[in-house]
Structure formats: structure tokens, C-alpha cells
């Protein structure tokens, strides 16, 4: 990668020349001119470690996800003569706050004020391409070490070069906020870069102590606040190119529909239509405006073939434990022997199909020219998208530049963005840039859904209220298997679906016999990554069942859990989170207003308390989290008044953003657990619009969310997904304490409606 490669006559607006001229920044890739070997050195070092193997093994065990992209400082950093630092992030910003955390980490090792760091998305032509994805709650944890090393290396390179310019030994130079000072004088980073000749690359210097950092572990405000509060055009939806047209692509309503033929004559006659494109199994329209494209799409007559009309009953029957191939994912002792010899307590749980429902629909802008293509898109998979576009156009990947834009929500929806290929096909057909947007209906119907699940829990109790054996069997639609992100070979090697069973292991490993068994089913529609993967459903089942065991054993549910936690590091961190959450929420024997199981109050609604607490905990990717939900039921309506959330993500790079992720996870999880459900009727998935697809609004969100952060590990761990785990179970457990009704099927509100209707 050199400046020359992107410096042709048709240089993109963001290219080095334009950038130099407009912003007065010299040496955009300031190392490239003199140290092209550095990239190879760094890149090879990080890439040769069997990224995939480590990823898959690590992910399966603990959600660990080493960063596999290049860490050459020259690909990540750009320093201008105005001393501003631009950080080109290979991870995308979808709301999770990664840009802010990366800026903090870089500022501390670079020794500059965090306010001078501007974080932007790295385009693929910059050479800084994440070979995998932004997802799995891994952006900060996977970059924590390599980004600090890259920033520290860059700082030392500047120190060495600055010392040379000052005519002193590098050891005589001190650095403070981007200024090098020596007895001979001082220089800013920008001045050093401007006058630099050959760069000397030192060994990776020792990193600072965390206690010496100024920004890491501080609640630094988000670096993208201003753009987002004043309406800057930063999202994929906002992307523009000169002479841009608007496209729309036909997609079938019905599950499993196959393209047969299309008649574009009506659409072609619509006002503003530039071209109707019908190729192979593809039909789309290109028009002068968004509205014209949307109207023309309505007039595009496509014949689809459907072999079977699917129903909810069909899907439910497919997703059942006890049928198909089981994979044991966790086994200790023998649950079989325990179940043969003792009284078995048993319960079944289900969760529905869930939609991502992110507010920015799928959108991509592509410009295909004779021998190259440019794509501007909101995507979590920059590298995969580039490859898919290149393959579709018959170009090499280096001929395709993907420029990531801010995402109007990710949640896993944009871990597959073939809409870039749709835009590229339309652009190729008309020879102009084309922006394709999904309709909201397409977005709901053609989502990569959270798969429906079915769970069977069994356990035996021993004397003194202890659990002798427990087993969790989960059947789920696919998550990782079938995803274009996971190569077929890796899918074969691993065999079981690491996404579907996430959160499905028994975390109470002091139970002498425990086992978890996973089964996945390929459904006739696409199911895949949804924020936290299987965690929400698996935790719902296991943690509701733990409450049922507490009832059967006559134990306090929190104490029962604490009694079965293993005495190792993971166990101690889980214990600390559970104890802190119970203390913070004021949990006492069933919580405020709790109804003792089987008591008179439980069967006498008139004297029953008006609210109750429910408890649940989960461990996801090494991050334990516990929730206490305080719940009221008003005329049958479940109201979550307060949630106490305690999380231990290890070192919290930005405590305020950890908090924000917890608040968001609590309410997104509450929304999914209480209300959300896609259904299949006459072969069609619905609903296809917000409202009928009910999501929590301000009126449904808890008025109080109390987040406490523990940091019982010295490196950052997962944050964005783990706090989604416990919420469904915490609410259901509270509803039981309040009403005596066990809710074993999500979404919980309709389940309670049915239970109350049945009781009336």
C-alpha cells in the first residue's frame, strides 16, 4: 500500500491528495514513504498465528477473539502538521462506543490529549482491513494489547526522529501532550512528522502501567457526540456520490420463494425510472429519486415459486429437543445416573423468532467502473463485503474499495450485507453510482433472525436443599452454522453451533453432575447472529429453572445459586457479581414484596404485594452479570419499575460507556423478552412494521436502571452483549413471585395474557 496506488486521476474524494489539499495534512500515511517494510513486518507477525483456529477455539471456550488484522502504526494513525491525530479504525462504530474506547487507549500511549484524536472508519483501500468482523463484544478486548503496542511504537518512533531533529539522544526527550521537550528545544508531533526523513522503527516499547493512564478507566464523553447530536451525514443511509441514482430490489414475501421470472414493463413506464434490471434471479429498478424507485418497485411484476407454505406449527415442531443430532457441549459427572436414581424435576421453555429491527434499514451505495468499484455502506463485515462485491463483479478484492459508514444500529444484522452486491449490480447496469435501500417490510421479512428455541431442563435435589444433577438441553435454529462469516470447513470441524449454545452451559459448576446438550436445526428462513446470540434464551431457561429448583428446595434463590458456584476464578467473579447485585438491590428472602412460595399471600391476590423482585445471573464470554428486576403487574400488564445490574467486564476502559451498554442491553433484552415475536402465517413472516412488531418504548422502559461495575480482571473483557443475558429470567422470576404464574415462554407479556385468560 503506497500513496501512489490510490492516487490516480479518479482519486476518491477521501483520497490522500484531496485530504492533503483540503485539510493541510501532510503525509497522510506518514510512515509509508520511508518505511514500507514496517507494514509487512507487523502484518505478518499478527496474521501468521492461525487466526481462524484461535478464533474458533477461543470463541467456543470463552468468547475470546484475538484481533487478526494488521497493526502497523502507519495503517492506524495519521498525524497532521496541525498536530491532530487521526485514528483509522478497522472496527466499525455501531453505537457500542468502540471509537471512544480506542481513542482513549491510543491517547494514553501516544501521549496526546484525547480531544485531538479523531477516529474514522478505515476504508479497505487504506490497507487496514479487519479480516473478520465487528461483533461478539470483542472490539475493545481484542485491540487492547495490539493498539497499545502500535501507539507506543509510534510514540517511540516520533521520539527517536524528534531527538534526531533536536540533535539529542532519545533518552533526553520527554513527551507531554504531543510535545517533545529536550534541553535543546521542543517540537510538536506535527513538526517532527513534517520534517521527518527515514523513520527508525524500535522494538515494541514497554507499555505504561494502567494506573498511569489519564483516559483509560475514565468516563470520557463519546467522541462522536457532536456528529450525532447535530445531524451530521455520517451514516450509510447518508452516503452520496456525484450523479448518484436510487435503487430498489425485489425480494419475495414468502419463505423459501424462488425467482422464476420478472416483467419490468409497468415499472419501466413509471416516472423517474432510469432502468429496470432483470438478470438471472435478480430484479431491481434504478430511478432518479428514492420515491420514484420505491414506487417503481411496487410496479415490478415478479413471479416467485414456492414449494411449501410454512406455518408457526411447522417451525415449532422442527425446533424441539430430543429429535435430531445432539452435541454434548458440557459434561461433568453423570446426570443420567442421578436421574435414574432420584426424583426428577423438569420444565420446558421456549423463545420465539426475533427480529433485529435496527432503525437504519439495509442500505448500500456502490459505484462500479470498468475495472474497479467503490462501496459506501453500514456493515459489520468490511472484508467479507469487499470479497462478495469483488466476486459478483469478477474483480480482484484489491479493485474494490469498501468505505464503512457509521451504522444506524448493528446488533448482528449487518454481519451479512449482500445488499452491497445488489447495489453493485444495479450500478454496473447503469454506469452510475446507485444507492439501494431495503424497505422496512423487506427488512423485517428478509432478516437474519434470532432463531426460535426450545429448552428442556431436568434436575434432582439432594438433602439440605442442594442440587445433585442438572441438565440443559437446547434446540435452536442455526446461528454460527450457515453464516458466511464462518467458513464451511470450520463449521465441519467444530460441528456444533457455538452461537446457538452461547450461554447454554451450566454456570453452577459445583453441582456434582451437570450437562448441557445442544442441537441446531436449519430452518427454511435465515437465522443467525442477534446481539448476544443464544444467551438471552438460554439464560431465560436455565435461570427460571433455578428459581423453580429454589422453590422446590424451599431455598432463597440467590442463596441456592451461591451454594453451587465453583471455587475457581470464573466462579469467584460470578459469586462477587451475584452478591453485589443482591446487596445493591436490597434483596432479602425473595426480594421486596416477595411472596414466599406456597404461602397464603401467594394464593390470596387481594392481600398480595404490589411489586416483587426477580433475580437472574449469566456468564457470557468470561463476563458475569446479574440482574434484579422489580416488577409490578397492572391490570395484567407487566411493568418493570427498576433493574439493578451488576457486571464484571474486567478493566472498564470507559465506565460510562459500559454503563450505557448495560442500560441498552437491559431495555433491548426487556423488549425482546416481554413483547417481540415474529410469526409465520401461510408461508409469510410478520409483522413487517414497528408497532405490530411491538418493541419497548419510553413507557415500557424501567424508570430506574442502577448499574454497578466490578473490575475483577486486569484486562478489558466483553461488554456489549453479556448484560442482555439475565433480564428475561429476572422479569419472569419476579412475575412468579408476584402472581404465582410461571412464565416459561417468551415473549412474556402474551404468555401472561394467556395464563390470566385461562385462569379467568
Amino acid at each position, binding site marked *: 500500500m503506497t500513496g501512489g496506488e490510490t492516487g490516480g486521476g479518479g482519486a476518491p474524494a477521501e483520497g490522500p491528495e484531496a485530504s492533503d489539499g483540503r485539510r493541510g495534512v501532510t503525509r497522510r500515511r506518514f510512515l509509508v514513504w520511508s518505511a514500507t517494510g514496517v507494514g509487512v513486518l507487523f502484518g505478518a507477525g499478527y496474521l501468521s498465528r492461525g487466526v481462524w483456529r484461535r478464533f474458533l477455539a477461543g470463541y467456543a471456550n470463552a468468547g475470546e477473539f484475538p484481533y487478526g488484522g494488521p497493526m502497523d502504526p502507519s495503517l492506524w494513525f495519521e498525524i497532521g502538521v496541525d498536530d491532530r491525530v487521526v485514528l483509522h479504525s478497522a472496527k466499525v462504530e455501531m453505537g457500542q462506543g468502540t471509537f471512544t474506547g480506542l481513542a482513549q487507549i491510543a491517547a494514553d500511549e501516544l501521549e496526546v490529549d484525547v480531544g485531538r484524536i479523531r477516529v474514522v472508519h478505515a476504508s479497505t483501500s487504506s490497507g487496514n482491513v479487519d479480516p473478520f468482523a465487528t461483533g461478539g463484544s470483542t472490539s475493545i478486548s481484542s485491540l487492547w494489547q495490539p493498539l497499545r503496542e502500535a501507539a507506543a511504537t509510534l510514540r517511540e518512533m516520533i521520539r527517536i526522529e524528534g531527538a534526531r531533529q533536536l540533535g539529542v539522544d532519545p533518552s533526553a526527550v520527554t513527551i507531554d501532550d504531543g510535545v517533545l521537550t529536550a534541553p535543546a528545544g521542543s517540537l510538536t508531533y506535527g513538526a517532527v512528522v513534517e520534517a521527518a526523513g527515514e523513520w527508525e522503527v524500535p522494538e515494541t516499547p514497554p507499555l505504561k502501567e494502567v494506573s498511569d493512564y489519564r483516559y483509560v478507566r475514565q468516563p470520557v464523553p463519546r467522541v462522536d457526540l457532536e456528529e450525532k447530536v447535530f445531524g451530521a451525514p455520517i451514516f450509510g443511509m447518508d452516503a452520496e456520490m456525484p450523479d448518484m441514482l436510487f435503487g430498489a430490489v425485489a425480494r419475495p414475501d414468502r419463505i423459501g420463494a424462488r425467482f422464476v421470472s420478472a416483467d419490468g414493463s409497468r415499472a419501466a413506464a413509471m416516472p423517474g425510472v432510469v432502468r429496470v434490471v432483470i438478470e438471472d434471479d435478480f430484479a431491481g429498478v434504478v430511478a432518479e429519486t428514492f420515491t420514484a424507485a420505491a414506487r417503481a418497485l411496487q410496479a415490478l411484476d415478479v413471479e416467485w415459486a414456492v414449494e411449501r407454505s410454512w406455518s408457526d406449527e411447522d417451525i415449532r415442531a422442527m425446533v424441539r429437543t430430543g429429535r435430531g443430532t445432539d452435541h454434548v457441549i458440557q459434561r461433568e459427572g453423570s446426570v443420567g445416573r442421578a436421574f435414574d436414581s432420584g426424583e426428577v424435576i423438569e420444565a420446558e421453555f421456549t423463545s420465539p423468532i426475533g427480529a433485529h429491527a435496527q*432503525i437504519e434499514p439495509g442500505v448500500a451505495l456502490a459505484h462500479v467502473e470498468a475495472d474497479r468499484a467503490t462501496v459506501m455502506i453500514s456493515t459489520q463485515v468490511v472484508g467479507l463485503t469487499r470479497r462478495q462485491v469483488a466476486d459478483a463483479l469478477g474483480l480482484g478484492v484489491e479493485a474494490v474499495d469498501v468505505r464503512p459508514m457509521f451504522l444506524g444500529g448493528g446488533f448482528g444484522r449487518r454481519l451479512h450485507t449482500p445488499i452491497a452486491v445488489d447495489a453493485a449490480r444495479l450500478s454496473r447496469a447503469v454506469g452510475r453510482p446507485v444507492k439501494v435501500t431495503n424497505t422496512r417490510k423487506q427488512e423485517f421479512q428478509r432478516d437474519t433472525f434470532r432463531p426460535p428455541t426450545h429448552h428442556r431442563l431436568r434436575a434432582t435435589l439432594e438433602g439440605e436443599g442442594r442440587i445433585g444433577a442438572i441438565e440443559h438441553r437446547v434446540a435452536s435454529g442455526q446461528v454460527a452454522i450457515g453464516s458466511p462469516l464462518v467458513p464451511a470447513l470450520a463449521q465441519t470441524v467444530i460441528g456444533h453451533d457455538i452461537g446457538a449454545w452461547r450461554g447454554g452451559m451450566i454456570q453452577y459448576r459445583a453441582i456434582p453432575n451437570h450437562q448441557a446438550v445442544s442441537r441446531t436445526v436449519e430452518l427454511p428462513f435465515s437465522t443467525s447472529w442477534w446481539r448476544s446470540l443464544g444467551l438471552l434464551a438460554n439464560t431465560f431457561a436455565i435461570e427460571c429453572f433455578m428459581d423453580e429448583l429454589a422453590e422446590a428446595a424451599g431455598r432463597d434463590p440467590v442463596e441456592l445459586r451461591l451454594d453451587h458456584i465453583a471455587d475457581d476464578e470464573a466462579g469467584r467473579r460470578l459469586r462477587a457479581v451475584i452478591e453485589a447485585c443482591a446487596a445493591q438491590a436490597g434483596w432479602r428472602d425473595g426480594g421486596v414484596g416477595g411472596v414466599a412460595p406456597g404461602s397464603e399471600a401467594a394464593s390470596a391476590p387481594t392481600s398480595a404485594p404490589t411489586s416483587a423482585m426477580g433475580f437472574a445471573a449469566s456468564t457470557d464470554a468470561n463476563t458475569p452479570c446479574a440482574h434484579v428486576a422489580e416488577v409490578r403487574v397492572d391490570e395484567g400488564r407487566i411493568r418493570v419499575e427498576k433493574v439493578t445490574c451488576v457486571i464484571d467486564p474486567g478493566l472498564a476502559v470507559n465506565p460510562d460507556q459500559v454503563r450505557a451498554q448495560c442500560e441498552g442491553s437491559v431495555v433491548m433484552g426487556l423488549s425482546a423478552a416481554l413483547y417481540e415475536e415474529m410469526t409465520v402465517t401461510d408461508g409469510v413472516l410478520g409483522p413487517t412494521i414497528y408497532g405490530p412488531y411491538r418493541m419497548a418504548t419510553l413507557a415500557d422502559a424501567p424508570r430506574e436502571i442502577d448499574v454497578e461495575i466490578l473490575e475483577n480482571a486486569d484486562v478489558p473483557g466483553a461488554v456489549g452483549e453479556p448484560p442482555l443475558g439475565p433480564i428475561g429470567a429476572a422479569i419472569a422470576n419476579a412475575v412468579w413471585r408476584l402472581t404465582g404464574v410461571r412464565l416459561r415462554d417468551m415473549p412474556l407479556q402474551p404468555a401472561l395474557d394467556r395464563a390470566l385468560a385461562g385462569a379467568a
Partner: protein
Amino acid sequence: MVAFTLNGEPRTVDVDGGTPLLWVIRDEFGLKGTKFGCGLAACGACTLLVDGEAVRSCVLPVSAAEGLDVTTVEGLGSPDDPHPVQQAWIEEVVPQCGYCQPGFMMATAALLADVPEPTDDEIDARITNVCRCATHHRIRRAIHRAAEIGSTREGAE
């Protein structure tokens, strides 16, 4: 030809009168702060102010704005002179992905113009936009904070 005032400037545009106001503002006038979410007035991402009223612009024909005063998030305030709602959104660090936030801020601006110090129940009833990052907790705090800032500024004038 349709004529209306956009962020204080008189503007005219030659488009089909049935074109939703959202697309005229985004693609004819290039102001991208007003967002497309659903196209059926169900999510509120496209909320802007028409003569001070919060309107979901994805279903409002531009012809209906003839002669009226339209304000988008770009016209609400600027980094140098933020509207109390924007100031509160910054102080409370509300946005995550940020896509729905202009709609929430415009709906809040209209609410506070009507009800300068809304109760939680009034907020629940009036602000019905959808946010998938689930920033509801901070949005509520920011609405109360914006009310405070508004009353302070008013007192100062």
C-alpha cells in the same frame, strides 16, 4: 413548485407534490439529519417540526408543507449555539448508534414547547419513537435536563 421555509430560509422546490417531505429535505436540500426508518410513520426517526408541531415527515406530502415553517435537527441549534435539547443530549451522553436521536430530539423540542416541565407520564405519552440501542433511560434524563436548561435560559433572558 412547492415553497416553504426550511430552518429559517425560504426555499422552493420543483418536485411531485406527493413526494414525502423527508426525501425533499434529505435529497433535494441535502440535509441528512432527518432519518428514514420505516416509511410508515411508525418509528419516528423522520420527526421534524412543521410550524412547531412534531411531524413524521416520511408520510407527509411536501405539498402539505406549502407556506409553512419547517425545522430539522440542523436548524435546531449548532455546536456553538445548541438548543437546550441538544445541550441536554450532550450532557447526558445519550446517543449510541445515534440514528434515531434526531427524531427523539425534535419530538422533545415540540413537547417542551407545549409542556416546559413534563412529568414522566407526559413524556411516556408524548414521546413514542423507537430506539433499538435502547437509550430510553438517558433520553428520559435528557428530557428533564433539557427542561431545566430551557427554564434557566428563559430566566436569564
